[in-house]
């Protein structure tokens, strides 16, 4: 697809229209389900892997529905936005595929009732977000950051899988809707650690937070989607979803409150430090994730209520602001907060969307964000389950994060639009309608839900009920009288405005504050790569001699250990039975081996080894196995021919090198020989079970019509084995052929 022709297509052509229509239709369907879900969860299921008890069960309760509405609703707007933002891109179709795959994964994640199915969708979101973050694949930074996100969330995903297995063992099944309260179970500590490892990496809690700001390498629509409403909330969803069965313990509360609180405060301080407005938004997303985790951890009815309200609040304003950041980038060519200024006239629609969404982020009345913050404060101040210290911690974290959020909102949504007009790389201009319609709708929803809170409660009440595992009435009021929460809000505004007023000074002051997690990640990755390289170099030295030496050294070690562990050495066999022919063959073989060991010519060594092989064939003849002897002889001949042909072109052996390594080789060879002998003697001491031999002897001629038992076994009794063996022979030959031909083409 040529970039020029695609640019003029409305809505990004067919792929764009599909990517908009699908989530829009799904959104409409989920909207129709709202009244039903308000009355009770919906459930239906299809068997998928019956043997593992995996079924695709759809379990739509309030929490699932809230997420599904966010995923499809914001997904529709993001798809529309992308069609304008990326519609002219050469790889737009690919982008649409990734986006839809992500959407499906996310929907599956929130709708699955089975933990294993949930995990599969969890991984789908991990992989598709890797592809989305690395969309600009020709940029090394983009690739690196995509890989970082994949490794961090993927590792967490593995821990989560282990956690799921333990949950299955402890809870007697993988149905989320049927899980009992596990907090008293003996496996609970392990489950807790593993599940939280998955949730914390996915939802970027400190110290696993570093991948999220780096994931801003993705195109802006991706950031708006993945990092506002969806992927990073996957972990939050998981914690909320498992809250009824895992959340009734002190460990859960402490872990979530600690990680969530630290993340919220640390991230909002880091947000002030950024100058790239997209980075500011990324760090404030971390703050939101931390806050959500904190309140799930607090776990009281009020906290869950506040959490659910804030979840919706954040999704609405954050998606809008990311899109605004993309509009500013598109309209001016820069996202640097130090440069941007005075855009109000040039980008009026963007300004309206930004200021409304920003006000919601700052928590100003009468916007939905104000409600969100009020109810968080309510929960923080009124909770009676935690100790006084706990209240102080939750309220303190929420307060600090909220105040810093006011300042961050100012930096992103106010600062670029006011003041004198600035010189930007591109003359400021408004974006196309497809790009501003999304933020405008989301900002408008923020107003609507704020002014008429009852609009949102029909979804939020079932959601809070689902998280709590017990009915939670959600009644939102814009004016609830003069409450402690309102007073705290006023203090927050004052602090926030002060922080915004002084934010440049604060930024300079924070200059020395560095986030060490990202360099640490690089260090770990370098360590892993270095370790692998060292291991590969050591084991895969590239020299055939070394390979063989290592292989036989391992064999010798294993044999020696076995013999040592078994203890008993077999007694020496009687030598009186040996007659002249035996002695001659023995001398024949030994002489061949000795020559091979001391000669300085490769050809001589090969010929000497051939002698050994012929000697072995003689052994077979003496002990009545002519078939084996013939085969041995032919193989020996072929081997000598093959190796001799291969060795023709090799340089002569260097006597000094040979003498240096030969001693070791000799020791290894002798010890392998000695140990093989010991093992053989041990085998001889156990009585031979002759039943199978007797069966073959008795049946070979009458049933299989053959007197040569060896051959009858090969082609009749054990024909299936033989077939497998000849298949291996043929495949090995083909493989060797391909290798030889491959080297020829390269030289």
């Amino acid at each position, binding site marked *: 697809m040529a970039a020029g022709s695609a640019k003029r297509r409305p809505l990004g052509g067919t792929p764009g229209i599909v990517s908009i229509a699908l989530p829009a239709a799904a959104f409409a369907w989920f909207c129709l389900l709202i009244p039903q879900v308000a009355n009770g969860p919906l459930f239906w299921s299809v068997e998928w892997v019956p043997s593992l008890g995996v079924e695709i069960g759809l379990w739509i309760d309030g929490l699932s529905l809230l997420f599904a509405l966010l995923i499809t609703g914001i997904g529709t707007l993001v798809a529309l936005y992308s069609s304008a933002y990326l519609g002219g891109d050469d790889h737009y179709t690919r982008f649409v595929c990734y986006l839809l795959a992500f959407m499906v994964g996310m929907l599956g994640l929130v709708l699955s009732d089975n933990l294993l199915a949930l995990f599969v969708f969890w991984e789908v979101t991990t992989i598709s977000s890797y592809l989305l973050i690395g969309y600009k694949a020709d940029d090394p930074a983009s690739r690196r950051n995509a890989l970082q996100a994949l490794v961090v969330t993927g590792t967490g995903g593995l821990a989560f899988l282990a956690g799921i297995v333990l949950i299955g063992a402890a809870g007697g099944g993988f149905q989320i809707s049927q899980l009992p309260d596990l907090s008293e179970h003996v496996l609970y500590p392990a489950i807790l650690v593993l599940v939280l490892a998955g949730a914390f990496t996915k939802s970027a809690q400190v110290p696993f937070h570093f991948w999220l700001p780096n994931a801003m390498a993705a195109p802006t629509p991706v950031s708006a989607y993945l990092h506002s409403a969806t992927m990073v909330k996957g972990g939050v969803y998981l914690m909320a979803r498992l809250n009824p069965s895992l959340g009734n313990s002190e460990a859960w509360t402490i872990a979530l409150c600690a990680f969530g609180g630290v993340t919220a405060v640390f991230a909002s301080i880091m947000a002030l430090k950024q100058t790239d407005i997209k980075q500011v938004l990324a760090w404030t997303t971390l703050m939101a994730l931390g806050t959500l985790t904190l309140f799930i951890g607090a776990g009281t009815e009020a906290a869950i209520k506040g959490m659910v309200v804030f979840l919706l609040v954040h999704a609405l304003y954050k998606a809008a602001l990311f899109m605004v950041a993309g509009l500013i980038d598109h309209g001016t060519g820069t996202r640097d907060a130090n440069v941007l200024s005075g855009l109000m006239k040039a980008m009026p629609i963007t300004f309206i969307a930004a200021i409304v969404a920003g006000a919601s982020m700052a928590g100003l009345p009468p916007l939905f964000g104000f409600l969100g913050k009020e109810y968080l404060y309510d929960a923080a101040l009124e909770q009676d389950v935690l100790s006084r210290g706990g209240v102080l911690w939750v309220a303190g974290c929420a307060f600090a994060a909220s105040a810093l959020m006011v300042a961050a909102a100012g930096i992103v949504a106010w600062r670029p639009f006011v003041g004198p007009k600035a010189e930007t790389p591109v003359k400021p201009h408004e974006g196309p309608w497809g790009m501003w319609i999304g933020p405008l709708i989301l900002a408008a929803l923020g107003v609507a839900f704020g002014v008429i809170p009852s609009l949102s409660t029909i979804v939020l009440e079932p959601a809070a009920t689902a998280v709590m595992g017990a009915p939670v009435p959600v009644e939102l009021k814009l004016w609830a009288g003069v409450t402690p929460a309102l007073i705290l809000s006023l203090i927050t505004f004052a602090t926030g405005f002060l922080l915004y007023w002084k934010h440049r000074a604060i930024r300079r002051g924070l200059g020395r504050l560095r986030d060490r997690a990202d360099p640490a990640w690089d260090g770990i990755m370098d360590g892993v790569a270095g370790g692998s390289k060292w291991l590969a170099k050591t084991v895969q030295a590239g020299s055939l001699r070394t390979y063989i030496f290592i292989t036989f050294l391992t064999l010798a070690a294993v044999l020696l250990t076995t013999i040592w562990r078994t203890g008993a050495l077999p007694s020496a066999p009687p030598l009186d039975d040996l007659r002249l022919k035996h002695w001659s063959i023995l001398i024949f073989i030994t002489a061949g081996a000795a020559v091979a060991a001391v000669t300085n010519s490769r050809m001589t060594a090969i010929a000497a080894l051939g002698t050994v092989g012929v000697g072995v064939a003689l052994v077979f003849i003496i002990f009545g196995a002519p078939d084996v002897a013939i085969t041995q002889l032919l193989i020996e001949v072929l081997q000598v021919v093959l190796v001799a042909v291969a060795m023709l072109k090799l340089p002569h052996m260097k006597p000094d090198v040979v003498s240096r390594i030969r001693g070791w080789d000799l020791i290894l060879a002798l010890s392998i020989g000695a140990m093989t002998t010991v093992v053989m003697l041990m085998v001889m001491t156990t009585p031979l079970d002759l039943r199978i031999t007797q069966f073959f002897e008795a049946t070979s001629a009458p049933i299989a019509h053959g007197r040569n038992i060896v*051959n009858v076994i090969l082609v009749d009794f054990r024909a299936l084995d033989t077939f497998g063996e000849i298949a291996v*022979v043929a495949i090995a030959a083909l493989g060797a052929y391909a290798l030889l031909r491959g080297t020829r083409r390269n030289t």
Partner: protein
Amino acid sequence: MGTSLIVRAATRVLVGLLLVFSIYMLLRGHNEPGGGFIGGLIGATGFILYAIAHGCRAAREALRVEPQTIAMVGLGIALFAGLVPMMIGDALFEGMWLFLAADPADPNDKGIPLSNILVFDVGVYLVVLGSVLTLVLALEEEV
């Protein structure tokens, strides 16, 4: 051609003998030492000798088909021999015999014994012949 006259002259006689002998070994394998594996190796030796005397290209021309094709056809024949009994309801790789021109009165007279076992052994013969030649010819051309 750097090979000696003696080798080339001897090859002319030996190759034919080796090939006939390989088939002899294949056919007698059920009752005497021999069989498809040994026969295939002997047959391969014949062609290798030819390749040493006259070059790999001549050996390939004498073979007429690629050695890897021979191996694959052999594998197919062996599989077919195993599948036939299954098609008529027996076990996979079950032996099926037909004693041509045998005297029904004499239990020791087996006439000309034909069987899917023999077909299977022919498959083994071809796989071994083809595989060994694939390897050796490629290696020799490489050097």
